[in-house]
C-alpha cells in the first residue's frame, strides 16, 4: 500500500418505515449534498463515484441509473455501481484511489425496503437450485443460525434480548427504533420481533480522499488502515453457523488483530449475529460495540453496512475514537463479510 486513504465525510438520512412520498433519488440527494458541503467539494471535483443498491428491493429496474441524477453525472463522470451494500462500493472506491487514478471518491448507497415484502425479496439472492424454490425467508434463515448458537451454548434468549435492548438504547438521531422497544412475540422461533431489524428506507454517503487531500478536507481524517472482504461457502449446510471464519480472515487481513480497537460498528441485522461476530472478531468487553445502535436500530438494506463505516469514521472525526473497526455483511447468516480498520492521527 503506497497511499493513505481516509473517510473525510459521512452523511445519512433518518431511516424511516416508509419514504413513499419520495423517489429514490429524492431520498438520496440531500445526503449527497450533505457530504459535498462538509468537504466543500463539487461533483466536478470528485475523481471517482461508486454506489451500492439493489433493484430487487423496490422492484425498480435500473433504479441506480436514475439515482445518478442526484450526483449530476453530466458531463460524464468516472462512475461504477455494485449490486451490494455500499460498503463494497467503498471497497471498490478505495482500490481506485490506491491505484492513483483518483484522489477523491464519492460513495453512496440507498435502499427502499418499504415497497416490497423484504423477507421474500431476499430469498431471491439464494442458491436458485436448492434454496430459492423453498422461499426460506431472511428471518427463518437467521433463526436457524440463532438456534444453532443456543444449542452450542453460545447464547440464550435472554442474552439475545439484552443485545436488542442495549442496541436500541442509543442516542442516534437517525435511528428508526430507539429507546425501550417490546421484545415481542416469536417471528420465527427462537427469534422474536425484537431480535430482528426494523424494516426501513434510507441512504448514506461517504467521501474518501487520499493523502494530503484528506488532511485538507477534514480536520481529523479517519484513515483506512486496512480493509478486506471474504465469503463463506454458499451452501448453508456446509457451514458452521455458530462461527464466521470469513469475518475473522477479513479482520486479520485488515490488520484488526494487530492492536486493540476502542470501538466496533458491527453490521448484525439479527441479535444472534452479534454473538457470532463478537466471537469471530475477539472483541473484549472494553470495546464499545455499536454506539450507533447498529442494524437493530436502523437497517436500510444496502446502506446499513456503509453506515457502519461512516459511524466508525465519524467517531474518529469527532475525537471519540482513535482506532475503530467497522464491519459490513451481505447475504443469509453472515454469508459475506467486510472488515475495515480506521484510525485517527495521534492527539
Amino acid at each position, binding site marked *: 500500500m503506497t497511499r493513505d486513504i481516509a473517510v473525510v465525510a459521512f452523511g445519512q438520512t433518518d431511516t424511516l418505515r416508509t419514504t*413513499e*412520498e*419520495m*423517489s429514490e*433519488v*429524492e431520498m438520496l*440527494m440531500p445526503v449527497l*449534498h450533505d457530504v459535498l458541503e462538509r468537504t466543500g467539494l463539487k*461533483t466536478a471535483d470528485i475523481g471517482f463515484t461508486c454506489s451500492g443498491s439493489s433493484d*430487487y428491493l*423496490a*422492484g*425498480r429496474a435500473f433504479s441506480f441509473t*436514475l439515482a*445518478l*441524477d*442526484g*450526483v*449530476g*453525472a*453530466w458531463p460524464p463522470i468516472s462512475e461504477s455501481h455494485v449490486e451490494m451494500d455500499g460498503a463494497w462500493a467503498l471497497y471498490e472506491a478505495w482500490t481506485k484511489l490506491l491505484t492513483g487514478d483518483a484522489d477523491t471518491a464519492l460513495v453512496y448507497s440507498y435502499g427502499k425496503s418499504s*415497497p*416490497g*415484502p423484504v*423477507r*421474500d*425479496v431476499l*430469498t*431471491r439472492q439464494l442458491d*436458485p*437450485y*436448492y*434454496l*430459492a*424454490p*423453498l*422461499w*426460506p*425467508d431472511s428471518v*427463518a*434463515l437467521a*433463526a*436457524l*443460525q*440463532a*438456534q*444453532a448458537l443456543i*444449542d452450542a451454548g453460545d447464547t440464550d434468549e435472554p442474552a439475545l434480548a439484552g443485545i436488542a435492548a442495549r442496541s436500541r438504547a442509543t442516542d442516534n438521531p437517525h435511528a428508526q427504533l430507539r429507546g425501550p422497544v417490546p421484545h415481542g412475540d*416469536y417471528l*420465527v*422461533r*427462537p*427469534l422474536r420481533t425484537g431480535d430482528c431489524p426494523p424494516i426501513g428506507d434510507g441512504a448514506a454517503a461517504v467521501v474518501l480522499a487520499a493523502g494530503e487531500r484528506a488532511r485538507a478536507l477534514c480536520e481529523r481524517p479517519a484513515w483506512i488502515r486496512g480493509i478486506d472482504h471474504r465469503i463463506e*461457502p*454458499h*451452501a*448453508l*449446510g*456446509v457451514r458452521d*453457523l455458530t462461527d464466521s471464519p470469513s469475518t475473522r480472515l477479513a479482520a486479520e487481513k485488515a490488520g484488526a488483530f494487530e492492536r486493540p480497537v476502542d470501538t466496533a460498528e458491527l453490521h448484525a441485522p439479527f441479535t444472534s449475529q452479534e454473538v457470532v461476530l463478537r466471537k469471530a472478531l475477539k472483541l473484549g468487553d472494553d470495546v464499545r460495540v455499536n454506539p450507533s445502535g447498529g442494524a437493530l436500530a436502523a437497517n436500510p438494506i444496502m446502506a446499513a453496512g456503509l453506515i457502519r463505516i461512516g459511524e466508525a469514521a465519524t467517531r474518529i472525526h469527532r475525537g471519540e475514537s482513535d482506532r475503530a473497526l467497522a464491519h459490513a455483511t451481505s447475504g443469509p447468516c453472515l454469508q459475506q463479510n467486510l472488515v475495515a480498520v480506521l484510525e485517527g492521527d495521534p492527539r
Partner: protein
Amino acid sequence: MPEVLKAPLVVEFPFTRSLGPVQSAFLTGLRERVVLGVATADGRTLVPPVEYDPVTAEDLRDLVEVAPTGTVTTWAWNHEPRRGQPLDTPFAWVLVRLDGADTALLHALDVPGPDAVRTGTRVRIRWAEERTGAITDIACFEPYDGEPAELTGSDGTFEEKVTGIVAHARLDYTYSPGRAQSAYIAALSGRRTVGERCPSCRKVYVPPRGACPTCGVATAEQVEVGPAGTVTTFCIVNIKAKNLDIEVPYVYAHIALDGAGLALHGRIGGIPYDQVRMGLRVEPVWTDGGRYPDHYRPTGEPDADYETYKELL
C-alpha cells in the same frame, strides 16, 4: 403537495436454468426417490451435492447415494408460513444431515408444534406425489424413529436425466412514484403537462424526476409546458406488440413540448405514417377517461424551424 400515489406492481420472472452434471444427477435422483451426494477428495460426502469443492474448488463428480433418513442439526419454528414455502400449515425449518452425509440440507419438517422438534430429532423424507426433478420433489421431512433407511443401490445413472429447472418467482410491490412524478401524474389527470425547472441551469424537465441530472440538484419550480410541441425525431413501428390495439405501421416520436427542455415520447396519429417528419407540429389527443394523451396529431401549423429544436434532439 398532492397525496401520495400508489399502485400495485407485480414482478414475475420464470428463470430457466441449466444444471451441471452433479446437480442434474441429484435432482433426477429426487424424481426417482433416490438421494445422491458427492464425495470430496478428503472423503466427505456433501448433500445437497455441489459441482465444486467448497474448500479446494476442485471439480466434484463422484456420486454417492445416502439414505432418505437423517438427523436435524438446527431448526426454527415457522408459525406463519409464507407464500411459496413447502407447507401451508405451521412447520419447522430444519437443516438435516442425512444418514451417510457430512453436510446438511435445508427443508421443512412437518410436526404439530415446536415441542415436537429439537436438534437431534430423527427424520425422513416425505416424497411429493408428483416429482419433476426439483428440490420440491421432497415435499418435506417427517419424524422417523429408526435406523438409517436402506439404500436403493443407485450409482447415479438414470434414464431421461433432468437437465434444467424453471424457477418461478413472483414478488408483489406497492409502487409509489415520489414527489416530482406524483405531481406530474396529478397534473396529467387535469390534462395539463407540468415539468420542473432546474434552479441552476434553468432547463425544464418533462416528465420530471425530481433532480437535474446535469447539475445534481433538486428541481421544484413547476412549469406548465405544451400542449403543442414539435417532433424532433421518430421511428416507424412495423411489428405489432403483444396486447397492443394499434394497427401497424405507426409512428413513435420524440416530441419537444413548447417550453420543455427535453423531448418526451408518444405516438403520432391523424396523419399517414410516411408523412411524419422532423419539425412537424403536433398536439395531444385525449380520450375519455384517459390518464395521459392517447397520441399526438398535427396541429396544421407550419413545420418548426430546425434551429428551434436542434438542441433537443
